[in-house]
């Protein structure tokens, strides 16, 4: 046997999104990783591309009644109701923990009125440890009959514009998949000043307990996530990448590197891992290892060469 001399060069995994240099394109999806500390015993937070927090609102939010979750075929429904400690408690009690790490902190936030969105953004803008904001627009606009902001291009335009004024940090707008034409909502967000887009949030779903004849969720309707939704998410990311020129972060049913690669190949610059964290707290670490192995096997030196490399 000849002794191999070739030095194995580790592929470059870092990506740049809206001016942020991330050490790799893998980060958790909001609401599936708590405030970071919950998974710190299981995963080196310094190995991630970024940390994305649970969605925050101006005031603490108690969330929905139980049951709040149920398993479906290769997926789960949740109607947590955006329970969170509120932006102030977050800044005071959760940020210090996150600041220990050398990983960009992306704070997810939402509101039920434009002003609430703007107010949260403004507070977060003042916090140096917050590297970027991710704006969840899958919330009902209570001032407009409860229509979800993210399904109405005009509402998107208006709320993103207002938030944009309040922060100079990178602003990621997180799109809802429950729309007829995602290219329209994506463009509305881009035009209103988003620096990047992330998608998809959960698909609206429902499940019934046929014995009791009651919905399995107290809230009747919830958000579907997990591997079941991946083909829909890949399609939507593919469509959005073609419609906008800002970077896109792909989300939806990612459990392995192979899944993440689908999103990267259609053009996502990074991915978020959600439900898979529940199934396996090491999921993101495994994905990162597998991504590196894939690049080595395929002779890819820089993951950026892979991004958007779809051949149609």
């Amino acid at each position, binding site marked *: 046997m000849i002794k191999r001399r070739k030095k194995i060069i580790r592929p470059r995994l870092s990506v740049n999104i809206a001016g942020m240099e991330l050490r790799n394109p893998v980060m958790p999806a909001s*609401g*599936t*990783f*708590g405030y970071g500390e*919950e*998974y710190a*015993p*299981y995963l080196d937070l310094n190995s991630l591309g970024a940390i994305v927090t*649970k969605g925050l609102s101006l005031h603490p939010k*108690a*969330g929905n*009644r*139980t*049951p*709040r*979750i*149920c*398993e479906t*075929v*290769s*997926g*789960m429904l*949740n109607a*947590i109701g955006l*329970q969170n400690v509120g932006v102030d408690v977050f800044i005071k009690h959760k940020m210090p923990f996150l600041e220990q790490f050398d990983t960009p902190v992306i704070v997810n936030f939402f509101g039920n009125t434009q002003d609430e969105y703007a107010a949260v953004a403004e507070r977060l803008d003042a916090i140096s440890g917050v590297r970027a904001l991710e704006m969840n627009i899958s919330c009902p606009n209570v001032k407009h009959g409860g229509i979800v902001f993210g399904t109405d291009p005009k509402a998107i335009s208006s709320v993103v514009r207002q938030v944009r004024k309040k922060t100079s940090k990178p602003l990621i707008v997180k799109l809802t998949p429950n729309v007829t034409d995602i290219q329209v909502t994506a463009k509305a967000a881009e035009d209103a000043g988003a620096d990047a887009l992330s998608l998809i949030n959960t698909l609206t779903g429902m499940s019934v*307990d046929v014995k*009791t004849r*009651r919905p*399995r969720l*107290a809230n009747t309707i919830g958000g579907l996530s*997990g*591997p079941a939704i991946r083909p829909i998410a890949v399609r939507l990311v593919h469509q959005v990448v073609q419609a906008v020129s800002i970077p896109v972060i792909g989300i939806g049913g990612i459990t392995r590197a192979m899944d993440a690669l689908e999103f990267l190949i259609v053009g996502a610059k990074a991915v978020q891992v959600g*439900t898979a*964290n*529940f*199934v*396996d*707290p*090491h999921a993101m670490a495994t994905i990162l290892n597998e991504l590196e192995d894939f690049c080595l096997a395929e002779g890819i030196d820089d993951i950026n060469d892979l991004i958007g490399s779809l051949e149609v």
Partner: protein
Amino acid sequence: MKNHKTIVLSNQEISPGYYRMRILAPDYNKLARPGQFVMFRVQRSLPPLLRRPFGIFRVGFMPADCDTMPPKEFIEIIYKVVGSGTEIMQGLHYGDPVELLGPLGQGFEFGEADEEKILVGGGIGLVPLYMLAEKMIDHSKVRLLMGGRTRDDIITVTEFERLGVETYVSTEDGSLGEAGLVTQVLEKKLQENNQVSVYACGPMPMIEAVEKICSAHRTPLQVSLEALMACGVGACLGCVVKGAGHTQEQPSYLCTCKVGPVFHARQLAWGSDDDAAASDCGVCR
């Protein structure tokens, strides 16, 4: 708190529909406290998607395969086959690869030494009480009141007796022990002596009845609850129960996986007519 990729050591039916599984689990003898649980998963099996929570029945050591090796650490869980996940578990054998996330949650507090302890277990709710009894039996008198629908639901009572626990068994259909509810026995015991601590785990209606009795007698009570769980570590917020003082206006939700699964009764909201604790979630058996 770790995720172990490990293997099944044994898996046996101990009563119709109830299985006892022994799993290789390094460090659990040191780490696990009575009342804690694990999030269990069969490696590479989909479905089910999510892990399943199970109380730790006991921890232990067994001889290694050869003399030069240290003894093998294990945990045992006892589960009832109720749905897709437990059906798959039923078919597991020695050597099958599984994953354990744990030990998770807060365990029981042991209370005063010498004071009498009453454990109330309903069906599979008995599981977390065994380790508790093991720890307390040296300092306190421990009684177990064990209830179930039929005699098939009365499991591992001999194990408790072997520890020296005085056990009372009742079944709803009278097929084993006394006919009736375990709560009737509790009521009688507390009338005799309320200077005890009560520890309860079982179906929600039983737990609620136990709470009523204990609060009437001003007897301290710890309960172990079940809730639907996705993550088991406090990240998804799926598993919450209502905390004491919860109102529509000032809601207070506690994570069963992190603050619980064992709660002091005083930590929780009881008897509110809408969705008190997890009682209306249809998952409490």
